[in-house]
């Protein structure tokens, strides 16, 4: 291969798209770009590669678009990694132009233009224009309002029509009825030289509602792009050995059972397979939750999604991608999701109560005025004034504005929310189920007592281990890095998969590995031994490292009145060691199906369960839970199934998210009360026939401003702390990337 496995050259080619004659384009996601300096440096580095035609960084999305010439991708990822920027390939396939956002922003611009100009004309009318000019202004307003209503209103009309056709009602139904009737009445009055026209009310209502809707969409989109930008953990393709002896890199979807696959160390198993030749160890933590690497030899069956650590393997595919373990998890997730009780968002529930009440009030007003005055036009005017004044402008902003403010605050803390409904569900949570490996723990073991080993021995061990992908080796290297020990690569280093590492330094044979292999007189102690010519020199013990703040997070949850437990696919002993100090009840050896069952039975008992998990085996449980969270390091399916994804290492994200969700719920309630209180004040005035277009415009703007102001209270406070946390992450990640 022209490029090393770390550069993913074949994957780059698979993920690229044609950008012109002889040109290909790739998008890379580089999460650690955080300032203009990084932008300049990356563009210079990549632009300096001979094949690269153009490199352009997008700082907002933290992505680099690279256009290159030829058929062999330039070493983009290794160049970035050497400079301290961890980068990964971003798929074009998942990247579609966001048509909805464009439509919303265009409609917003048009509505802003129209409402501004109509308001200008209306103010002239309100200040007492003479009847002739008033008519002219009304006609002009109508001419501006009609096309903008058709253009901006269709978003609401479409959704209202969808709801009505299915016999449901949503917030868009009263909005559409109100806006259309207001326009119709005003047009009729303009034809008959009436004094009042509500064109400004109809269009500015659309403008305010579009603001809320656009912000809501932006929030979800930002979370979606941030999650999409994370490293893809499933294999994109695999090197297949063909019958004529040639090798070819093919996409995972094209792998058929019976094909022979060459799997290098550091690659993920693409489909379920059987080992034909070779020996290695596999990191199965994402697939099954077991924290210790599993040895693999000839004849062993491997699950798709596990990571090959130490040796190269030759595999025979036993299932196509769509029948593999991963696909089975996806199917389980779908059934689990279908079994989850449907959640109705607060706004929809409010709309269900709101619309009939409003329409009934308008109808009664119409009947009452018709009875009392016997004037049909007056009765219609007053009834429509009621509809306009009750149009859920504040209500339409009340919920999305709070969710946007909450999502913004969570975003600063490195937590992505996929939609507003997730926030509402998160606020109801009263029980948290944690996965162990990768969720409560960091997913990689750490050196248990690094000070127990003499620094010079640690340096030698780390030098030997620096070339290995085994998690124990990486833990030793990380410990040496942390103490600033210099590492000199030894000559003649060999890795024996399943047993350990062997090096020759100054003619002496050093071994780092299992005791029965490294020592001439094996002892029964566990851990990894460092030996010189068979003599024991040092012993390394490993433990699973808790995520930072795991203890504090569990305590904080308890203080909030939320109980927690652990459901793990790992073995009893490993789970107990971790659960006891945390004081959590636990269940070990839980299969993916059993996890779903446990969560469904909790749900049947009336508990609102938050599932926090990262593995493939957690995917169905994440989909089944009332609401779910996953760390950024989670498997791809877990990340896409989870409602929230947290990017920082600390587990403090869980109580923080629940806390903000609860605050958001309180604010939503306050906002709904404010909106209803405003209606309680305004509706009697409207029923009495005292609402002129001027009163309607003032009432509508005031109520919207109050609601938005109240929602923005959530955005304040504690942002300082979140900002410093973000900085720390920014400086930590490149270092971690280099240690790998």
């Amino acid at each position, binding site marked *: 291969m022209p490029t090393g496995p770390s550069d993913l050259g074949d994957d780059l080619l698979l993920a690229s798209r044609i950008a012109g004659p002889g040109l290909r384009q790739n998008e890379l996601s580089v999460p650690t770009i955080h300032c203009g300096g990084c932008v300049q440096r990356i563009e*210079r580095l990549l632009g300096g590669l001979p094949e690269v035609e153009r490199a352009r960084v997008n700082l907002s999305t933290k992505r680099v678009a690279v256009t290159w010439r030829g058929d062999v991708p330039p070493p983009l990822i290794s160049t970035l990694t050497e400079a301290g920027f961890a980068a990964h390939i971003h798929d074009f396939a998942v990247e579609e132009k966001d048509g909805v956002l464009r439509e919303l922003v265009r409609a917003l611009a048009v509505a802003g233009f129209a409402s501004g100009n109509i308001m200008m004309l209306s103010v002239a009318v309100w200040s007492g224009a003479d009847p002739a000019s008033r008519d002219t202004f009304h006609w002009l307003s109508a001419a501006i309002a009609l096309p903008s209503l058709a253009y901006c209103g269709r978003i609401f009309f479409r959704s209202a029509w969808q709801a009505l056709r299915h016999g449901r009602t949503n917030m868009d139904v009263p909005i559409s009825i109100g806006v259309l009737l207001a326009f119709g009445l005003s047009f009729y009055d303009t034809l008959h030289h009436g004094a009042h026209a509500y064109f400004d009310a109809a269009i500015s209502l659309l403008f305010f509602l579009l603001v809320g809707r656009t912000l809501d969409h932006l929030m979800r989109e930002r979370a979606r792009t941030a999650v999409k930008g994370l490293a893809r953990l499933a294999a994109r393709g695999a090197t297949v050995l063909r019958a004529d002896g040639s090798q070819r890199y093919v996409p995972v979807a094209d792998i058929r059972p019976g094909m022979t696959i060459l799997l290098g160390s550091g690659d993920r198993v693409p489909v379920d397979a059987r080992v034909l030749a070779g020996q290695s160890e596999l990191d199965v933590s994402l697939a099954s939750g077991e924290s210790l690497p599993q040895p693999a030899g000839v004849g062993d069956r491997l699950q798709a999604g596990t990571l090959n650590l130490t040796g190269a393997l030759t595999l025979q595919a036993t299932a196509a991608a769509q029948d593999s373990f991963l696909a089975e998890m996806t199917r389980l997730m779908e059934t689990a999701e279908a079994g989850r009780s449907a959640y109705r968002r607060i706004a929809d529930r409010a709309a269900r109560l709101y619309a009939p009440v409003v329409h009934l009030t308008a109808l009664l007003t119409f009947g009452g005025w018709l009875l009392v005055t016997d004037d049909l036009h007056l009765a219609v005017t007053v009834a429509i004034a009621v509809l306009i004044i009750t149009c859920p402008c504040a209500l339409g902003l009340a919920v999305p504005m709070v969710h946007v403010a909450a999502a913004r605050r969570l975003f600063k803390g490195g937590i992505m929310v996929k939609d507003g409904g997730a926030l509402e569900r998160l606020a109801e949570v009263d029980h948290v189920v944690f996965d162990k490996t990768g969720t409560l723990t960091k997913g990689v073991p750490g050196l248990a007592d690094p000070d127990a080993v003499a620094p010079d021995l640690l340096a030698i061990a780390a030098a030997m281990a620096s070339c290995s992908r085994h998690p124990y080796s990486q833990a030793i290297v990380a410990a040496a890095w942390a103490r600033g020990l210099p590492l000199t690569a030894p000559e003649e280093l060999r890795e024996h998969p399943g047993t350990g590492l062997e090096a020759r330094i100054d003619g002496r044979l050093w071994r780092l590995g299992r005791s029965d292999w490294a020592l001439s007189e094996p002892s029964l102690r566990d851990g990894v031994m460092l030996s010189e010519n068979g003599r024991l020199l040092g012993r390394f013990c490993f433990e699973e490292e808790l995520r930072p703040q795991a203890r504090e997070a569990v305590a904080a949850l308890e203080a909030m009145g939320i109980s927690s437990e652990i459901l793990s696919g790992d073995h009893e002993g490993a789970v107990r060691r971790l659960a006891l100090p945390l004081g959590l009840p636990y269940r070990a050896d839980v299969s993916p199906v059993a996890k779903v069952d446990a969560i469904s039975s909790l749900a049947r008992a009336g508990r609102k369960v938050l599932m926090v998990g990262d593995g493939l085996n957690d995917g169905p449980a994440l989909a089944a839970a009332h609401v779910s969270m996953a760390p950024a390091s989670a498997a791809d399916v877990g990340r896409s199934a989870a409602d929230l994804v947290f990017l920082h290492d600390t587990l403090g994200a869980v109580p923080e998210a629940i806390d903000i969700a609860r605050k958001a719920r309180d604010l939503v309630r306050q906002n709904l009360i404010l909106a209803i209180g405003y209606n309680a004040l305004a509706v009697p005035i409207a029923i009495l026939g005292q609402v002129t277009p001027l009163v309607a415009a003032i009432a509508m703007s005031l109520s919207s401003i109050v609601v938005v102001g109240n929602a923005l209270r959530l955005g304040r406070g504690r942002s300082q702390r979140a900002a410093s946390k973000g900085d720390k992450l920014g400086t930590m990640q490149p270092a971690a990337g280099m240690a790998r």
Partner: protein
Amino acid sequence: MTDFFYLIPIALALGAAGLAAFLWSLRNGQYDDLDGAAERILFDDDKPLKDDPPRQKK
């Protein structure tokens, strides 16, 4: 009294020009990277990027 027969079309035309400019900038991708644009104004790249030797690590 007849002044506004000139003024209103002018006002509307100005507003429409603003709207058209916004829609054009949206289509032209001016809002794709707001954070990056804020930083790029500080770069002083007078030479084309390709002739620059890659800068060494800090």
